[in-house]
């Protein structure tokens, strides 16, 4: 069972040439995730969501505080779906998959093709990324993250660059795949609809990278877009965000 423990996490970016002030991306964030849950982190643009995932993935270091992602006490294997597809343009789709795969054998190619099939891309293995549409590339990114058999799945607004229709259909793919494996997932988005459809729990961030609210969602799966129960919770989350907006506007600290 995987756990992600985030304690009093801060990240301050030093001043740069373009921005003489330092930027606080995360300001004392704490959160603990245990077991096979799907957690959505929702916050406005610039609230430190990508920074959070990068620190959990170990590609950025925190300024202070600690992050531990563990699987049975040892560091967890992470599968990361980025905001953009991030495929090697000069490698075919299947070679992009094998690039991150642990072993190289016939089996791993079959595995790669299995996960491609799961996202509906069984027949593009030998094409180059430039030959795929944006949505297809993003699906390769999803398949790649599942291929490494991660203990913790990190998803950074994987559908935000896509049109609404494509986004919705990929969400269904994601939900279906996730239901088969139920990996511990940390899903970052600024889209409340998306979060409610996918998550067991929603952590709301406010600018400055601090938790503002934390709610659990106990709806049966698979959830359908436009389901009244889903819509009720969406409304509730949006209401709380509106309250936060007012609180931030009027200078109140948190709620």
């Amino acid at each position, binding site marked *: 069972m995987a756990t992600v423990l985030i304690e009093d996490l801060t990240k301050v970016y030093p001043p740069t040439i373009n921005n003489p002030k330092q930027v606080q991306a995360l300001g004392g964030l704490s959160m603990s995730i245990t077991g096979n849950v799907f957690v959505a982190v929702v916050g406005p643009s610039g609230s430190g969501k990508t920074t959070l995932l990068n620190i959990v*993935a170990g590609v950025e270091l925190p300024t202070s505080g600690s992050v531990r992602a563990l699987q049975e006490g040892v560091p967890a294997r992470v599968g990361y779906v*980025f905001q953009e597809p991030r495929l090697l343009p*000069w490698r075919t789709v299947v070679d992009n998959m094998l*690039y991150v795969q642990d072993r190289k054998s016939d089996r791993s190619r079959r595995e790669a093709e299995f996960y491609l099939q799961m996202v509906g891309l069984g027949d593009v293995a030998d094409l*180059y990324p*430039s030959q795929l*549409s944006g*949505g297809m590339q993003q699906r390769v990114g999803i398949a790649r993250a599942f291929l490494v058999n991660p203990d913790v799945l990190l998803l950074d607004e994987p559908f935000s660059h896509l049109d609404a229709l494509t986004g919705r259909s990929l969400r269904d793919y994601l939900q279906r795949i996730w239901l088969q494996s139920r990996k511990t997932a940390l899903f970052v988005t600024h889209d409340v609809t998306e979060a409610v459809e996918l998550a067991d729990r929603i952590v709301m961030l406010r600018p400055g990278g601090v938790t503002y609210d934390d709610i659990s969602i106990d709806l049966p799966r698979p959830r359908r877009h436009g389901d009244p129960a889903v819509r009720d919770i969406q409304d509730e989350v949006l209401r709380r965000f509106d309250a936060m907006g007012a609180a931030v506007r009027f200078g109140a600290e948190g709620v």
Partner: protein
Amino acid sequence: MGAPQDLGGFGPFDVRPTAEGATIRERLLRSPPFIGLLALALLLLIWQWIAWVNTRVPGIDEIVRFMVTEMSGGSHGGALTGEFWAPLATSMQRYAVGLAIGVPIGAALGLLIGAFRWARGLFNDTVLVLLALPAVVWAFLAALWFGLSAWGPILAVVLTVVPFMAVNLSAGVRNIEPGLIQMSRSFDVPFGRRFVHLLFGGSLPSGFTGLRLAFMTGWNSLLIVEWFGATSGVGWRARFWYDALRYPGFVGWIFLFVILITLLDRLLLSPLERRAFRWNQQPTLTFEEEL
């Protein structure tokens, strides 16, 4: 469960309008080989005209006749006989050895400089100095170090090729998108695989630019070194005829040199490059088409 729907189709690989509507004349005018031949013909015409005006400049016919004698080993008058294949083979051999040593060294150096700060500190200035030094300097230095042996020309090729490869490959590495590096780190991709697929794969485009420049300038400096400090080879032969005041021979060998380097580029490097860039299916638009 039905077959999953494809959300996006395969876009056409080439968005250029087809030449269907263009007339034969238009198509001909746009075809690169045709334009190339046209330019060549124009060049020869201008040359012939200069030869006409200035009698010291040999005409095309003179040059061709001289080179035929040279190739067939016939007599140039006096005790001078034609000599063609020996100088050519000698130069080619030096060139090949120089490239075989210089290209891998330069490529490795470039990857290191691009990837590691310590390598950058260690080698970058050296590479820039090498790049700045003209081939003539190598000619004299090599003659100084090795006398008139084959190692002078070979060393000159190596030393010109290395910086071109290194500079271009290191720039290629540094231009690799940071997102891809982050992706590799987050998935813990082992170093060897990262080196081959990310660093090498990503710097291949500029690597090819480097390779082309290396092939050109390497050949250049070989000839210069042979001109000043060798007793065999193409450069030596060109100088031999120059010193003998037999300008058709001198010009003929220079032409030969140009033809060889062009053929090498067209027959070897271009096809290789096309093969290496299969992944880049985006058509390259020319300026006129974009307007």
